[in-house]
């Protein structure tokens, strides 16, 4: 049953991504000032939303682990954080490329970019911590605590364009009271957000299966030593 869901979701994600790429390259017009490069937004914005919200969602599962000590919650939190890091990397890289066009520089130390970099560093720290600690209980507890710091920072990244006057654009999408995009362009943005959410769910499912396998290996090793 789980395999069927996985393969069904994979097929749906692939089809939706193909549909979105067709819309982005073949249907939607160019932007007046940025030309073709504005299309970077169709991956930059959804990946930023997923990267930030993913680390926020991981907080819920980290707290659930701290309350229940059930490793299933730790697995989900680890999976979501790792996949969120993929999206964080994507939005930092694509944002830097867009910044080179729009601002003439690859990077600016403004609050949005700096807090996003700090988020990426916290996420990297989380992943390194998990690799460094072998004992599952200690690893899960410390990871959960670090996840809380990450989620606080993800909220700062999210709100930074409202709290500060940043070089980064103010909210563009209408769901954040932006209204800076044509309706057809904005709809494609949401469709690509959906496609990336589906991709993210698939990646988290793969990661969770690997976490379970990893714990099985550790448990069997302990059993083998005890023999």
């Amino acid at each position, binding site marked *: 049953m789980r395999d069927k869901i996985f393969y069904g979701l994979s097929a749906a994600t692939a089809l939706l991504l193909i549909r979105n790429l067709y819309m982005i390259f073949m249907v939607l017009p160019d932007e007046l000032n*940025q030309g073709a490069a504005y299309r970077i937004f169709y991956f930059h914005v959804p*990946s930023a939303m997923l990267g930030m919200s993913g680390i926020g969602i991981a907080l819920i599962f980290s707290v659930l682990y701290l309350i229940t000590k059930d490793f299933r919650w730790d697995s989900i939190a680890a999976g979501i954080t790792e996949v969120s890091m993929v999206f964080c990397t*994507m939005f930092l890289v694509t944002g830097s490329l867009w910044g080179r066009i729009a601002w003439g520089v690859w990077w600016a130390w403004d609050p949005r970019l700096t807090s996003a970099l700090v988020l990426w560093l916290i996420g990297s720290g989380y992943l390194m911590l998990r690799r460094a600690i072998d004992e599952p209980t200690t690893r899960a507890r410390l990871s959960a605590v670090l996840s809380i710091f990450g989620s606080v920072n993800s909220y700062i990244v999210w709100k930074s364009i409202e709290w500060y006057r940043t070089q980064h654009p103010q909210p563009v999408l209408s769901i954040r009271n932006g209204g800076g995009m044509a309706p057809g362009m904005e709809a494609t943005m949401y469709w690509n957000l959906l496609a990336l959410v589906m991709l993210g769910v698939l990646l988290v499912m793969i990661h969770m299966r*690997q976490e379970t396998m990893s714990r099985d290996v550790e448990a069997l090793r302990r059993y083998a030593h005890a023999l």
Partner: protein
Amino acid sequence: MDQTNYSFMFYGFAAAWIIVVGYLVLLGLRERKLKQQLEQVKALIATDSPSRSRIS
């Protein structure tokens, strides 16, 4: 399509897909390693268990 900044659009999409594909490759390699480890430790237990049971 307007050719203005076309190369940057290409770099942006290439970067996004390289990151996703790179992560998928990483997951694939990790899964293969875990499967090998699981088989090794299962084989170790299987070879260890009969001898132990004979001793006891």
